[in-house]
């Protein structure tokens, strides 16, 4: 069980979502955030004050996946989120020791493996 955390460009979000849906990753959580990296920061001016904006808008995607699917998921993100310019972002994979579904209380792999994914409900 792993948690994949990807930082991507906001304007690539819909592409990444489609990339993930295509490989049938449907459980995910996203958060708006700001990032600093190798990108050129933008300069803004307000009434004589010149300001360097060190942070650029980004989106964070968090996806919990079972181990065998980590590769596939990371690949999907990397492919659909790439523009080739500095600032495309990073993917971090971190270990997860436990997962619980709040609705049912199901835990861990148990909570995950046997249930059949409700295709119709998901769309």
């Amino acid at each position, binding site marked *: *069980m792993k948690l994949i955390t990807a930082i991507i460009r906001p304007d690539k979000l819909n592409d990444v*979502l489609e990339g993930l849906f295509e490989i049938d*990753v449907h*459980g995910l959580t996203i958060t708006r955030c700001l990032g600093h990296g190798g990108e050129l920061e933008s300069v803004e001016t307000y009434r004589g004050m010149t300001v360097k904006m060190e942070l650029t808008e980004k989106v964070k995607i968090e996806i919990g996946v*079972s181990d065998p699917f980590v590769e596939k998921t990371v690949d999907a993100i990397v492919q659909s989120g790439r523009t080739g310019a500095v600032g495309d972002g990073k993917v971090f994979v971190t270990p997860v020791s436990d997962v619980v579904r709040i609705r049912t209380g199901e835990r861990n792999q148990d909570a995950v493996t046997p249930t*059949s994914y409700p*295709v119709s409900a998901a769309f």
Partner: protein
Amino acid sequence: MEDATTALVATDTAWLMVACAMVLLMTPALAFFYGGLVRRKNALNTMMMSFASLGAVGVVWAVVGYSLAFAPGNNFIGGLDYAFLRGVGLEAEGTIPHLLFFAFQGTFAIITAALISGAIAERMRFEAYLAFITLWVVAVYAPVCHWVWGGGWLHQMGALDFAGGTVVHVNAGIAAVVAALVVGPRRDHGRQAMLPHHVPFVLLGTGLLWFGWFGFNAGSALAADATAALAFVNTLVAPAAALVAWMILDRVFTGRVTAVGAATGIVIGLVAVTPAAGFVSPMSAIVLGALATGPSYWAIMRRSRSRLDDSLEVAAAHGLGGLTGALLTGVFATAAWGGVDGAIAGDWRQLGVQTLAVIAALVYSGGATFVLLRAIGAVLPLRVEDGQERVGLDVPFHGEQAYVDGDGALLTIPRPIEGRRLELRGPQPVSTATVQVSDI
């Protein structure tokens, strides 16, 4: 209303056009006042309740409302002579074109109906609301308006209501209470803190309301004369005094001068001076504005702890404010300033008449609103479903959100990539492997 032999006066026409435009602006202003007070997920629904009144009430007023209020009729209701604006043309009605008088009165009907929406915000079905305000203007507003301004029985008894303390505010206030009771409280009422999502909008609404209210009160003189100027000045000083009084009350009782409170104070000052505007001296208006905050402040502090979910305080601000104003008109009015002598000038009779007018409005409007809502409720559900209330009314009823980022919004019109996705999404065998991934 009878004397149509007078001639048009250009100055009065100009002033009434301006005043009417200002009153029209009050309904969008109300949309912001109310819209800022609700939670983000209901912002559009709340604003649309005001905006929709511009359409629904605007049209029904032309069709039949105006006629019932102002066409020759009996003591209780006007006739149908003016239905579909028959016979309402550019000839003088007083000193302004009859059509302009119709329009000016129409903007009053529009905002009165919209006022009620504050009581049932965040939970009433939009269709039921539309049906309600449309019928309410015909069945409740038009008669009460006829009583006081259309030559009806209260008019004949000499009730003073310069610009609508009784017709507009008491009327809407009691209807609000009834509507809140019939529709029932929000599911979170008394359990969760439901906070205003956008206080600057409340202030924006307040600023625009005050601006428009000059047209509302001073325009009600129906001429650009000294009475209009008096009403105008009172509409400046009374809310100023009410604002000061409210800031003091707030500071004393909660320790802090809230912005929502300041907005509320201004509105209450405006409401309270409405019936009195052309009848009292400016110093009386200052006192009246300050005094009127008392009952409303007390009511608002109590209401939030009660079971009555008059969500945006229509009853406390408009009902009670209008009532206080209407009664104080009977106290402060003097013949010297254009009214008749009231209690302070030594004549208590006027206070009696004012009280009667208020009671009549309370009883009739309360009762008729109840019957109307029950009748509509028999045909359409009045109330949204629980799930809709939970996610907010904007998406289920309007298919929109007030503030959108566009994250995760996918176009559904056919296009290359969409075609590919649609195909993926039909029912298909699902391997357990796939499931593992997506189903965590």
